[in-house]
């Protein structure tokens, strides 16, 4: 059935990129991992709830929880979990359940926004470093080394100390913190992809660097980017919560979970539930991202799964 004409006329399109197949493969393998699929749907549901309740509140002024998250009710303060207040109330009598529901958008928002911002800077850096190599690679990687020299939350702290504490600044700080991870991983994958024979074939066909990068390298490094991003969201959420807990992030009365933990700190003796539930909420969300990300990573690199 083969047509000889087609065989002789080799065009760039005929040189198949393995990327598409890889992505399909990834999805197929991922679907076999039941906990990871559950984690994925759990995240989707949380995201939907967070967006819907926020939209209803901001655009229509409708509050879906029995109490408004910011309603102060001093008579009912320090109430433990009851039928009326599922997760109890805090030191100002605010409904912790409502605050957790309405705080979800901040946690998820910071997580997604910071990782997307980090990827937007880190991925191009990694590709350029890996693809061009040489001096450019050297300079980029040294910058990355500098960013990596600030361990963990410290870089974010330093940045917040310049910009001042706020939700937006925390997001920026966490985004910068995730740049080196993206740059390193993408550089590695780019180097590996560059070595593939089909890239040589495409170059031999006269494709420009720009075209090779966008049409051929990028799709190939997409899987590790997605895996990395998912696991980074988990870290980003923890870091952001930590900053808010330190008072460097979301400012009162925003129902951000880390800030709520900070509120609960002073009442551990008599009203432990104030600190309990926001922490459980962070744990649950981060757990979901980690399970989801682990599943993606195992699907991407079965060697790591045992």
């Amino acid at each position: 059935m083969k047509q000889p004409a087609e065989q002789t006329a080799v065009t760039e399109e005929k040189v198949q990129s393995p990327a598409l197949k890889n992505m399909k493969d990834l999805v197929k393998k991922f679907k076999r991992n039941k906990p990871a699929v559950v984690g994925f749907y759990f995240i989707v549901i949380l995201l939907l709830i967070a967006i819907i309740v926020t939209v209803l509140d901001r655009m229509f002024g409708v509050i879906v929880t029995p109490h408004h998250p910011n309603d102060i009710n001093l008579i009912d303060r320090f109430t433990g979990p009851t039928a009326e207040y599922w997760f109890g109330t805090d030191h100002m009598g605010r409904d912790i359940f409502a605050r957790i529901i309405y705080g979800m958008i901040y946690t998820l928002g910071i997580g997604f926004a910071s990782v997307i911002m980090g990827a937007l800077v880190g991925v191009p850096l990694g590709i350029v470093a890996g693809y061009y190599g040489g001096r450019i690679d050297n300079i980029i990687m040294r910058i990355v080394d500098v960013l990596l020299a600030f361990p963990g939350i410290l870089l974010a702290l330093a940045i917040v100390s310049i910009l001042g504490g706020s939700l937006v600044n925390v997001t920026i700080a966490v985004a910068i913190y995730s740049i080196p991870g993206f740059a390193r991983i993408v550089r590695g994958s780019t180097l590996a992809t560059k070595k593939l024979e089909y890239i040589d074939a495409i170059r031999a066909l006269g494709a420009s660097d720009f075209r090779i990068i966008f049409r051929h390298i990028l799709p190939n490094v997409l899987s590790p980017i997605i895996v990395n991003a998912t696991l980074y969201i988990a870290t980003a959420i923890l870091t952001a919560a930590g900053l808010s807990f330190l008072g460097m992030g979301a400012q009162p009365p925003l129902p951000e979970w880390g800030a709520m933990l900070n509120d609960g700190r002073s009442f551990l003796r008599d009203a432990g539930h104030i600190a309990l539930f926001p922490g459980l909420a962070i744990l649950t969300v981060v757990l979901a991202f980690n399970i989801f990300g682990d599943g993606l990573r195992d699907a991407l690199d079965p060697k790591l799964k045992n």
Partner: protein
Amino acid sequence: MTTYIIRRIFQLIPVLFGVTLFVFLLMHLTPGKPAQIMAGESAPTHVVERMEQRLGLDQPYHIQYVRFVSNIAQLDFGVSMRSNLPIIDEIRPKFWVTLELAIYSTILSIFIGIIAGIVSAVRRHSKSDIIIMLVALFGLSMPNFWLGLMLMQWFAINWGWFPPTGWGTPGQVVLPVITLGTAGAAVIARMTRSSMLEVISQDYIRTARAKGVKERVIIYRHALKNALIPVVTVIGLQFGALLSGTVLTETVFAINGMGRYVIDSIIARDFPAVQATIIIISVLFVFVNLIVDISYRYLNKRIDLD
């Protein structure tokens, strides 16, 4: 090997340059005159000017930077804006507290992480494997400051087994070290397990089996030594995470270490103190990583020379 060590030390130069430059710029990137911020918003102009003179802030940037670095090299971090005492004297006792906390937590996480990882790998797919990996996943997903709060609430406040705050007595050490070490133990356990499983599938393990070596000896003599090599890298990274994690842990347990000092300094806008802490922690981290890299290289040299 020696050339490698020398090369690695030379590679530190741009990193240290970048770190100091970044920290130096921290002060100048802040909106407003640093001296004005430090002196207070209502401080009259002549006070601000005198402060600028005293801190050398009236000099050109490059001169300021050179002086900044040469002072640091002599461990002169200037004077705290709050106490007017030399920062190095303020930090010195706090440095040892933080280092102690980080080292104890590292030891705990290595100890628990490696043992749990081995058990998990050896009894792959057994109940103990599943439980250990679940606990590790939770440990990884938990905000450590929340874990600290919960430990404090139950073990210190409710049951009174340990003092809730402070540092120094053996009792005071327990809760903060568990708080800080948990995530590291989780990461190391996961890494040990996967590394162990990879090693167990290697050809030389088959050789050992074909020689008639007992399974237990295979695990502890033939596999473990190889499996721990990649774990060394993770331990280095974990030490960094722990160093920065001290910020949160020290805040939770009111420990008078560098972590709390940096937070207090940020809140008080005591820039020289912030700069000093960030530099000390980062440089410490950079050197720990250097040691880890060199030992990794040393351990690994027998493996990949091909």
